[in-house]
């Protein structure tokens, strides 16, 4: 019996020691990138295949090493990043990181200091608000990858039939959307828990999700302007949307295309990220694969405009997009830096723009083109806002508190009481 306990204790002790042995590898000072095989993590499917192939070829040309790209679903990305980034054996060398998570991971030291590359990669030309969320004490850790934005897509045919024109103020929009609602069709489709779109109403009324008070962040859901925005949103949801109260931001564009069975769309209006326009239009079978359909934009049936502000102009919407950073624990710092140079090169930035993703370097924003989508993207991005750059923000998002809160608000709850309740919950996590 004693012998057995001794054995068990020894084994356990050995394991504890072993576990303590995983420390991040120090960044080597002078190291060649030649032949280094690196891994890049991309979040979701935003980066098209053509761009991924470009990165792989360019990287092989530059260093002779292989670039492996792994795509992480947004749903699991947070937990994967949390477990993988500190681990030198399993960390991605370079990773895309959602702009809302950048502050959290930057402040805990997950990324390498790349201030020395800042000028080379674009310096002042890089989108300032994104640079900010990736910087700590004046040093840069995460830089912008691409920016997106959200704007309104609508059915011209349905709006025209109701005698409505493109609204110029937010109040007008809310009214128009309510008028368009029928028993089977949403006037404006927004899920109850969809806070990434719903927050636009908060921003438009001058409210915010959290404010920095000295050195600490405080959740500001109870702020009168925020409450004003939430009240509008609650009314809009009830009057205009048929979406389930439990639905978050998912696939809005399917709701504006004609449904194959009924010949009519689920909604007359939706709000979606700019790149959604590739999936909106008349649905026809794919010539290459008859079981799939492709959407071809039809200007007579579909249209877009930016969400109008309270007093006209553009409402501040949630700034979509991501940053990109080198993992501090990566053993291939030189190779990772080579990849960064390729990503911030003129050619790649132009490719991003050509595919509807706002390039980080604003000098190349013209590559977005000047069609209606590019114009809407630029207009809505100009005033767009980020989530609070608080150290604990990723934990707030990860715990689903915002989905819960918005769901309850849109479900008809007492906004002031809910705001107070969730302010307390968010305050516990927001400072990390």
């Amino acid at each position, binding site marked *: 019996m004693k012998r057995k306990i001794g054995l*068990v204790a020894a084994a356990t002790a050995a394991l504890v020691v072993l576990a303590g042995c995983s420390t991040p590898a120090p960044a080597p000072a002078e190291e060649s990138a030649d032949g280094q095989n690196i891994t890049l993590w991309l979040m979701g499917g935003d980066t098209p295949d053509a761009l991924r192939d470009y990165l792989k070829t360019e990287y092989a040309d530059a260093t002779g090493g292989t670039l492996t790209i792994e795509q992480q679903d947004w749903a699991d990305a947070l937990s994967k990043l949390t477990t993988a980034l500190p681990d030198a054996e399993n960390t991605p060398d370079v990773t895309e990181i959602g702009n809302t998570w950048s502050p959290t991971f930057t402040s805990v030291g997950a990324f390498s200091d790349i201030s020395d590359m800042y000028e080379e990669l674009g310096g002042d030309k890089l989108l300032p608000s994104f640079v900010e969320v990736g910087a700590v004490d004046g040093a840069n850790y995460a830089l912008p990858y691409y920016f997106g934005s959200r704007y309104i897509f609508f059915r011209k045919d349905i709006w025209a039939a109701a005698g409505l024109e493109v609204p110029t103020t937010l109040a007008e929009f809310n009214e128009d959307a309510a008028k368009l609602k029928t028993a089977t069709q949403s006037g404006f489709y927004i899920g109850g828990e969809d806070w990434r779109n719903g927050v636009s109403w908060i921003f438009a009324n001058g409210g915010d999700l959290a404010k920095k008070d000295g050195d600490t962040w405080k959740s500001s859901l109870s702020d009168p302007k925020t409450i004003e925005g939430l009240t509008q949103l609650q009314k809009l949801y009830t009057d205009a949307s048929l979406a389930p109260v439990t639905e978050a931001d998912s696939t809005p564009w399917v709701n504006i295309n004609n449904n194959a069975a009924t010949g009519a769309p689920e909604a007359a209006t939706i709000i979606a990220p700019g790149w959604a326009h590739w999936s909106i239009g008349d649905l026809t079978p794919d010539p290459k694969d008859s079981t799939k359909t492709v959407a071809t934009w039809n200007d007579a049936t579909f249209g877009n405009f930016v969400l109008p502000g309270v007093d006209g102009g553009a409402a501040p919407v949630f700034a979509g997009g991501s940053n990109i950073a080198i993992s501090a624990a990566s053993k291939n710092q030189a190779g990772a830096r080579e990849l960064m140079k390729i990503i911030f090169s003129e050619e790649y930035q132009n490719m991003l723009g050509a595919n509807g993703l706002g390039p980080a370097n604003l000098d190349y924003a013209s590559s977005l083109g000047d069609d209606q989508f590019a114009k809407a993207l630029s207009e809505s991005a100009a005033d767009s806002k980020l989530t609070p750059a608080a150290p604990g923000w990723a934990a707030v998002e990860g715990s689903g508190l915002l989905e819960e809160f918005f769901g309850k608000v849109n479900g008809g709850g007492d906004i002031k009481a809910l705001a107070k309740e969730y302010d307390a919950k968010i305050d516990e996590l927001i400072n*990390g």
Partner: protein
Amino acid sequence: MSIATTRRRGIRAPHVLILPAIVILVLGMGYPLIWQVVTSFQKYGLQQQFGKPAPFVWFDNYVKLATDPQLWLVVGKSLAFCLTTAAVTLVIGTLLALLMSAVTKTARLVLQIALLLAWSMPVVSAMTVWIWLFDRRRGAINYLLDMIPGVDMNRFDWLSTPLSFLLVASIIVVWMSVPFVAFSIYAGLTQVSDEVMEAAQLDGANGWQRFWGIILPMIRPVISIVLLLQLIWDLRVFTQIKLLQDAGSKSGDYDLLGTYIYKLGTSAQDFGMASAVSILVLGITIALSWFYIRSLLKEDEA
């Protein structure tokens, strides 16, 4: 059954035999458990993941846990879910076992094959099918229910309230668990001798009395272990809830203990609390099964 007595020579052999099992259990479970206990006494968040040392806060996590109404709500829901689902599973499983023993060979085989198909389906596969069956717009269940006159289920969103969400989860878990229960109880039923049953019937006992008086006591050991296993599994149910949340809402209102702990750890990045809650769940599980463990050990000694 003869038992090797502990002669000098004999002492070595059994210890060697159980060594591989012990090693693997220590590795796979022992070390993680110790880590978990230690971490539950620490403040362990994202910063600690990236190398900052973890300060010992001793019972802070546990105090926070004891005073968190949200957690106790989740515990309550999990217990309710586990007791209801296990009970339903057991009742249906027993009924099906009885059915199996009372029908023709062909019918029995058909039923058993159907149950085997359900049992062997990987959880992820089964969840994708069930989620689609319950889909609010295209699901077959809404379609079929809608056909009942007077019932309007068109576009009914099964995942829109916590109660209906858990109802769906319960239905799915019952569907997956009944086969095991049915087979185990059926196996037990085959041990009930026919002569005793016939004698009872001749004595005038009706079906109900025969069931309660003869069958039930004989299959009690099987029922006990099966019930215990169901309670433990249903209390900790994770995969089904997580996948349903993927399809519905990730809001905390839809959490049972399994997903609650997972979220605390990987999403809110509070590993200290997650560990403390896990220890709590372990405590509840042991409490639920304490009497049974004791009786199992007693029976083994005999």
